[in-house]
C-alpha cells in the first residue's frame, strides 16, 4: 500500500466524521498534501487543529516514512464552500 493510501486510511479511521484527501506532491510518495475537513475543528485555533491531525501521523513522521506533510484543515461547511467554488476534481 502506498503511503498516500496509508495516511488516507489512517486518518479516516481515526477521524470518522472527516473528509480526508491525501495527495502525493512530488511523485515520491513521501511529501504529502493532506486536506482534512471535520466539524471537530469548529472553534479550535489553527494550531490545535493541526496538532490534532499531526498527532495521528506522529509515527510516520518520527520514522521519517513520511518526510513532509502539507496540511490544510477546514470545517465541513468551508469544505463544501470550497467544492462549490473550485468545482469537482
Amino acid at each position, binding site marked *: 500500500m502506498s503511503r498516500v493510501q496509508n495516511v488516507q486510511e489512517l486518518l479516516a479511521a481515526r477521524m470518522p466524521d472527516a473528509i480526508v484527501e491525501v495527495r502525493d506532491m512530488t511523485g515520491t510518495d513521501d511529501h504529502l498534501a493532506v486536506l482534512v475537513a471535520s466539524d471537530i475543528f469548529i472553534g479550535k485555533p489553527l494550531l490545535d487543529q493541526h496538532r490534532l491531525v499531526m498527532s495521528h501521523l*506522529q509515527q510516520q513522521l518520527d520514522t521519517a516514512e513520511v518526510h513532509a506533510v502539507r496540511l*490544510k484543515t477546514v470545517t465541513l461547511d468551508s469544505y463544501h464552500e470550497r467544492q462549490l467554488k473550485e468545482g469537482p476534481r
Partner: protein
Amino acid sequence: MNDESPRAHPFRIASHPAAVTGNSQPVREPDPHASPLERVERMVGSADLFLFIKGTPEEPLCGFSANVLRIIDSLGVPYKTFDVLSDESIRVAGKEYSAWPTFPQVYVRGEFIGGNDIVSELAAEGGLRQLVEGHEHG
C-alpha cells in the same frame, strides 16, 4: 520579489557563541551545563520572533524553511534563527519543546505559533502581522 528588502534584518544565532552574526543584541553565552531543552527555551525567548529552520536565512536547506523565511522577511521585522541541522540535540529538543514533529518552527514572544502551513495560512489571511505586532485578533 525583492529579497534584499532594506526593512528585513535577519539575525542568526548559532550553537557556538562565536558564530553569532548580525547586529542584534548578542545572545547570552549558553550555559555549558544547560540541557538542550533549556537551551531551546532560552533561544525561543531571545527574540520576539524566533525561527528554528533547516539551514540559514542566506542558505535555507529545505523548501519549507525557505518559504517561511520569505514570509517572515516580508514582515520587515527583526528575527533570529537557529539551524537545527547544525545540532542534533537541539533538533530533538526543539520537537519536544513545541510538541511539534517538524521544522521549520516559528515562535512569537516565546510562544510556538506553527510551522510552514500555519504561518502561510496566517500570512494569507493577514493574521500573521497582527500576531507578530502583538495586536489581538479581530
